[in-house]
């Protein structure tokens, strides 16, 4: 191992301090929420899941998708991706840790974690997810071990397969959290699990691009243009695939008369939700990245990083619309009637995220960042490309 691999020392400590600060702010926010109750957040009895869930679900979905890089290497035998498998697995563990930290600290009774670990309701997809998340942690850790320990190398392919299968089931489980909700018009669709899987591909790869490029830049290295081109194009394809699913989801809804009012709300009249959907997700989070990826003359790494950051931004916008917009639209308890009550029946629910919940969400990203920074330095995870094998495999 040479110091050449390592993130430059000054940058390292700066990053540790910065991400530690962000993670610490998240913990303080969680403490305040625990002390005062969720009344200090923007969440209420109408919008029961808020900003922490947007961040947490982004990280959990991306945690699964970032493993795609490893899977392409292990399962499909591409050497260029195989060299990136350890970093991809590490990012997965880090993102999952960040996401779960946020989810757990947002619980009304975060102190009852042991209750969640010891009482499983088998009909609850949340309970399944407790098993699925723990499993991914273990499998990804074993996978890294089989790759980094020479004696275990023979097991890395089976471990890669296991991780590949597990994360499909895991993201299906994340999609099912919403797909199993019969009550709300935004959810309850069998399209959601596959849509979440495809979203995980795009969001995870976007995160990988950002981390990989930063690591290369800080180590004064440049990524092989051929590998960069392949990974950039792959991101483009994933972004298109997500768009396809999102269009299919909304078109299906538009076709059902009972859903058209909801679609009109989300896509046209919903104020911040409509703006975030069209400008945040479609324009900035999808179309602009596609231009940066596929337009000739923009082959430089920095354009890919820009595209990736935009995809991440778009994913946050998408989840905000999906999670919060989906709850803001009133439940259809009395179809055919105009409804009013003291509990927000028939009204669009209002939601303004507060500082503590925003800090808690960012805190999760801080945790993921901190873990990545430290582990990358300790384990020397900068991808090493072997030119000959790469060229052979690239063909």
């Amino acid at each position: 191992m040479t110091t050449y691999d390592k993130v430059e020392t000054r940058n390292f400590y700066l990053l540790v301090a910065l991400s530690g600060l962000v993670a610490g702010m998240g913990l303080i926010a969680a403490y305040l929420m625990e002390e005062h109750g969720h009344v200090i957040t923007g969440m209420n009895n109408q919008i029961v899941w808020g900003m922490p869930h947007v961040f947490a679900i982004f990280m959990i979905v991306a945690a699964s998708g970032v493993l795609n890089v490893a899977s392409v290497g292990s399962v499909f035998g591409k050497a260029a991706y195989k060299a990136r498998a350890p970093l991809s697995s590490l990012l997965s563990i880090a993102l999952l840790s960040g996401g779960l930290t946020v989810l757990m600290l947002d619980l009304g009774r975060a102190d009852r974690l042991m209750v969640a670990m010891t009482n499983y309701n088998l009909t609850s997809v949340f309970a399944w997810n407790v098993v699925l998340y723990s499993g991914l942690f273990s499998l990804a850790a074993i996978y890294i071990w089989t790759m980094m320990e020479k004696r275990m190398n023979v097991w890395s392919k089976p471990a890669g397969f296991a991780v590949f299968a597990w994360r499909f089931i895991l993201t299906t489980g994340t999609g099912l959290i919403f797909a199993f909700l019969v009550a709300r018009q935004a959810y309850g669709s069998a399209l959601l699990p596959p849509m979440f899987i495809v979203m995980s591909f795009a969001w995870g790869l976007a995160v990988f691009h950002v981390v990989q490029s930063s690591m290369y830049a800080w180590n004064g290295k440049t990524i092989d243009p051929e590998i960069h081109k392949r990974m950039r194009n792959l991101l483009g394809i994933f972004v298109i695939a997500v768009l396809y699913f999102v269009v299919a989801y909304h078109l299906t809804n538009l076709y059902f008369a009972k859903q058209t009012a909801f679609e009109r709300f989300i896509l046209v009249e919903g104020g911040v939700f409509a703006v975030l959907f069209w400008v945040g997700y479609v324009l900035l989070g999808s179309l602009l990245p596609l231009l940066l990826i596929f337009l000739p003359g923009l082959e430089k790494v920095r354009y890919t990083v820009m595209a990736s950051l935009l995809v991440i931004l778009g994913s946050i916008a998408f989840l905000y619309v999906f999670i919060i917009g989906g709850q803001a639209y009133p439940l259809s308890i009395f179809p055919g009637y105009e409804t009013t009550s003291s509990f927000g029946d028939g009204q669009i629910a209002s939601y303004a995220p507060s500082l503590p919940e925003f800090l808690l969400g960012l805190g999760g990203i801080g945790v993921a960042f901190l873990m990545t920074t430290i582990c990358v330095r300790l384990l020397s995870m900068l991808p090493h490309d072997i030119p000959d094998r790469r060229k052979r495999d690239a063909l």
Partner: protein
Amino acid sequence: MNAENPDRRKFLGKTSAVVAGLAIAPGVFLYTTAHGRAPGEAASGKVRWGMLVDTTRCSSDCKECVVACNKENGLSGGTKATDPQWIRKVELTDKKNGRKLSLPVMCQHCEHPPCVDVCPTNASFRRADGIVLVDRHRCIGCRYCMMACPYKARSFVHETLTDQNPDVPRGKGTVEACTLCVHRLDRGELPACVEACAKTGRRAILFGDLNDPESEISKRIRTVASVQLRADLMLNTGVRYEGM
């Protein structure tokens, strides 16, 4: 008489058992319907508690059921978005003909409750007699049940609580909803909202055992048209509405 007649003995035995049964049965029957449950006695699956709300008797200017519920269960009665509301009055206007309706909405105590399905820790559960409850010791406050409930019947406790009713323990950071006043029911009393509604003279809420064909509620459901909210979801709610 020294020779015993086994047939005669059997006859006497059976007869006295029947007589004793006839003598005790009405008492047992009354006991089971009126006393609720003895401490430690399990809720019976033979009973299914339910309500029938007559919307034609319910008035938009009356909120006595809500007031009684808040008092009984120690709720503040506040209507901020973060305040728990176990029962609420909903005002409806038919979009086609302008017909107006007013009715209370609370936990519908479904036979197939989505909240129970999704609860990761089994904190949400359905008691044998059909009452859907939250075990406050098991609830971790994830609010998945609130996402799943089609009636928005559940509330999350957003703030520290004071002045709780000892019969109805609640807790910051957990989810709660109408319990059909299970503590009163187990004492053989009616839910607070039902009692309050009756006191107004409107008697818009009929409460009873849906499983007992002779109960007033069962007879009424057999004779008048009633609906379940979101009947399309096939949850078989314990609360029904007539006049809608």
